């Protein structure tokens, strides 16, 4: 299967890329890792006239903690999220997620920014980064605010494969609050086989105070709604409580209520809703096990 003909351009700076986006407008698509876009082009579900390749722009793959924030450059590959010691040691939610995205070869190419901008409701990063309370840094034409703006990820997703990106804008960074003391996360996914999309997946991030009371909670749901979803009621339920088994069980029920699954080849809606409950409970348990309580 061959994509329809298109024109290719590989700018070497972000400014050039933004100018090209402005020039070609809706005819253009950005190419990051290409592991979703290229298959879509082969199936002719996507037929851009101009393909703007971001892979030749240096400086978009930084991955560092800076003044209480994890800064993930948009072109950071899934593989780097999987292998970087900083992520493995401080961000178990993100390390868990990276390990279950697609397959190891696809993870060599696919990028975090590309995944977020693609906004597939079954994309793993969406749910994980909602749980992590991430923000998206968007760079666009110069003018207002030096061409940059930052949005909570929740406001970035506006529908299936739809985002708040305006013409000429590019996702350049994802920002995740660095974990405080007694804070951890986990990501659990049910998939039919390696490389398939999630049947259901759930990401959680939880922080306790010195007395073991929950002071912060994030829960993101994957593949059970028109976008990646945040289980807000479940999060609020946890805050101020000691997360024992009965509290966790109720959080699972609230997360299931927040899900909006549809029946498809990966399972009936009822089943998926119940799996949201089960995975939320298990992910919370796993995250809590990871919190060292001195």
């Amino acid at each position, binding site marked *: 299967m061959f994509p329809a*003909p298109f024109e290719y351009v590989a*700018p070497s700076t972000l400014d050039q890329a933004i*100018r090209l986006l402005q020039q070609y407008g809706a005819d253009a698509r950005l190419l990051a890792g*290409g592991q979703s876009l290229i298959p879509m082009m082969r199936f002719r579900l996507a037929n851009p006239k101009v393909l703007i390749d971001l892979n030749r722009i240096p400086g978009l793959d930084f991955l560092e903690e800076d003044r209480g924030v994890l800064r993930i450059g948009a072109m950071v590959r899934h593989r780097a999220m999987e292998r970087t010691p900083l992520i493995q040691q401080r961000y178990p939610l993100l390390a868990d997620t990276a390990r279950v995205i697609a397959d190891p070869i*696809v993870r*060599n190419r696919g990028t975090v920014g590309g995944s977020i901008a693609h906004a597939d409701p079954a994309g793993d990063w969406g749910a994980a980064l909602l749980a992590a309370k991430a923000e998206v840094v968007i760079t666009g034409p110069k003018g207002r605010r030096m061409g940059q703006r930052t949005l909570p990820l929740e406001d970035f997703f506006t529908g299936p494969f739809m985002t708040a990106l305006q013409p000429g804008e590019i996702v350049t960074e994802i920002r995740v609050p660095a974990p405080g003391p007694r804070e951890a996360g986990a990501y659990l996914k049910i998939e039919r086989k390696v490389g398939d999309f999630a049947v259901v997946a759930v990401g959680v991030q939880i922080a306790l105070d010195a007395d073991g009371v929950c002071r912060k909670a994030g829960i993101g749901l994957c593949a059970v709604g028109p976008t990646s979803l945040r289980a807000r009621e479940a999060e609020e339920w946890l805050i101020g409580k000691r997360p024992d088994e009965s509290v966790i069980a109720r959080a699972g029920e609230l997360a299931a209520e927040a899900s909006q699954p549809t029946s498809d080849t990966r399972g009936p809606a009822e089943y998926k809703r119940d799996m949201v409950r089960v995975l939320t409970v298990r992910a919370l348990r796993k995250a809590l096990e990871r919190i060292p309580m001195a």
Partner: protein
Amino acid sequence: MPARKGKRATAAPRRTAARKAVEAVQPAARQRIRVTVNGHPYEADVEARTLLVYFLRDTLGLTGTHVGCDTTSCGACTVLLNGEAVKSCTLFAVQADEAEILTVEGLAKDGELHPLQKAFWEDHGLQCGFCTPGMLMTAYAFLMENPHPSEEEIRVAISGNLCRCTGYMNIVKAIQHAAQEMAAR
């Protein structure tokens, strides 16, 4: 457009940075690319929509890399791009401009099979052989970074490569065997 196989000693001079910058901002339906495949430099005009696997097979005639599913699932088309395993059906040839590529044809040296190839042969790590080039290239990249893998690690490493004969037992065995051979060298 036929490919021209360059001579290593007389490779054409690299494009200057300035010229490249001018070229870079102009979208084009065709582009001239230079790649090094299995140590040999090649230069060719390619259509932007040409996927790397078709460039390797149809333009360069390197048919060892197989097209399997064409949907980024099976891994039969796996090659190394600058040392990393990639599915060559999910990358445009123009993206590989100035890259080094290793395909299954580049594994044997001076008529001698690579230890991975020998191990696949000896341990019956293939039945129909269709997935073999991808399995070999994935295993090659994997053993470069993890020379002493556990069986579990091997199974994860090849989880993006499908064998429709389901001959995974012997594929895993062959990779273990090759790892031992390579470590003993």
